[in-house]
């Protein structure tokens, strides 16, 4: 049984930890708001660009552009988007596990690792890593993410890989982030929606192939950019939640320790009282 003094000391140090986690929670919360706003603001562009691909599909054959080419899948590239730092709960572990499961079901898989956690995780697994990116800013722009997309395109166009997927943590809301793996290449129009069929008479400037040449690489860049934004929003949401539960846990521990310390004090006082009482009794008898 620890002494009352020890208990009080422990409560004090937990209180210090609680102050740290509370500060980290507040920092994460403000970054979270910004990252969430960024990901929500960027979604319309991606959705529109996807519908553009659907609109163009009837005017383009898979042979028209190398990024549309379907090949027999022998080699697969996975762009794994993780965070640079920890303290984000099980987010990175869950994603890594999903990626490994995904890789097990496929032939040869190589990786582009984004974020230190992913880089270290893949090294431990001994996976084949083509490129590593770490230390991306909190507010990434397409300028930051395009080099990642470029490597993916190069790998695909030189036929070193036959498919490219991006694995990231999709942001649903503050409490929910889902490991997601999405195909980036080859580009495929989504299932035909009959209501959304493009008009038959469609003019292209300069021409359909010229438009494709501009649109397709942009789609790849955007898929990577979007994955990064989703990951950032998830990161700060997960961090905020993790730090909040740490703060809450610290509060509970402090309450338990304080109670134990008070009990110890009560026991000590009772014992002292007894000693005094029995001492007085002995004196009276004598």
């Amino acid at each position: 049984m620890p002494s009352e003094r020890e208990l009080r000391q422990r409560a004090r140090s937990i209180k210090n930890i609680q102050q740290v986690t509370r500060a980290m929670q507040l920092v994460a919360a403000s970054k979270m708001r910004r990252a969430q706003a960024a990901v929500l603001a960027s979604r319309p562009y991606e959705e529109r660009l996807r519908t553009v691909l659907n609109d163009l599909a009837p005017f383009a054959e898979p042979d028209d552009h190398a990024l549309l080419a379907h090949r027999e899948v022998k080699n697969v590239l996975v762009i794994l988007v993780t965070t640079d730092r920890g303290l984000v709960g099980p987010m990175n572990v869950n994603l890594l596990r999903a990626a490994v499961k995904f890789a097990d079901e496929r032939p040869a898989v190589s990786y582009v690792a984004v974020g230190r956690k992913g880089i270290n995780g893949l090294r431990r697994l001994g996976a084949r890593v083509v490129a590593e990116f770490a230390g991306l800013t909190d507010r990434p722009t397409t300028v930051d993410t395009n080099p990642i997309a470029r490597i993916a395109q190069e790998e695909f166009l030189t036929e070193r890989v036959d498919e490219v997927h991006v694995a990231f943590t999709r942001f649903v809301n503050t409490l929910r982030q889902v490991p997601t793996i999405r195909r980036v290449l080859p580009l495929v129009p989504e299932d035909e929606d009959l209501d959304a069929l493009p008009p038959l008479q469609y003019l292209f400037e300069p021409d359909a192939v010229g438009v494709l040449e501009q649109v397709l690489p942009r789609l790849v860049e955007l898929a990577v950019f979007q994955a990064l934004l989703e990951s950032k929003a998830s990161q700060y949401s997960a961090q905020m939640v993790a730090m909040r539960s740490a703060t809450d846990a610290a509060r509970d521990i402090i309450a338990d320790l304080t109670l134990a310390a008070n009990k110890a004090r009560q026991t000590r006082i009772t014992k002292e009282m007894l000693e005094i009482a029995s001492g007085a009794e002995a004196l009276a008898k004598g």
Partner: protein
Amino acid sequence: MPLKLEIITPERTVYDEVVEEVIAPGSEGMLGILPHHAPLFTLLGSGELRIKRGGMEQAIAVFGGFMDVRADRVTVLTDAAENAEEIDDQRAQAAREAAQKALELAAGSANATEGARAKASLFRALVRIRVSERRRRPR
């Protein structure tokens, strides 16, 4: 028939209103779009996109991308777009001077990439300056 104009960049939605006419810098030249335009998909250059709405004319600087035109809506997907109000005139002027210097330097060397880059940034600065000047003398 209304014409709905949306201007969207990867970072945000810049403009979303019903307008009367759009004049856009297409890759093959300026394009005037009125309601009931034939379906058209075009690449965009960098330049000023002019919007006519309620007897007023407004300019937005757009930098590359695409424009999807249907009878009742125009969707502009561009790499970057700036309202006249957002453009920092002095910064744009400074950027123009820097770009001109870079262009002169590049002209001396044989590096074609450098020259092209300087030319592109000079062009962007000129577009910004033109758009921001339009704000000060409305027609």
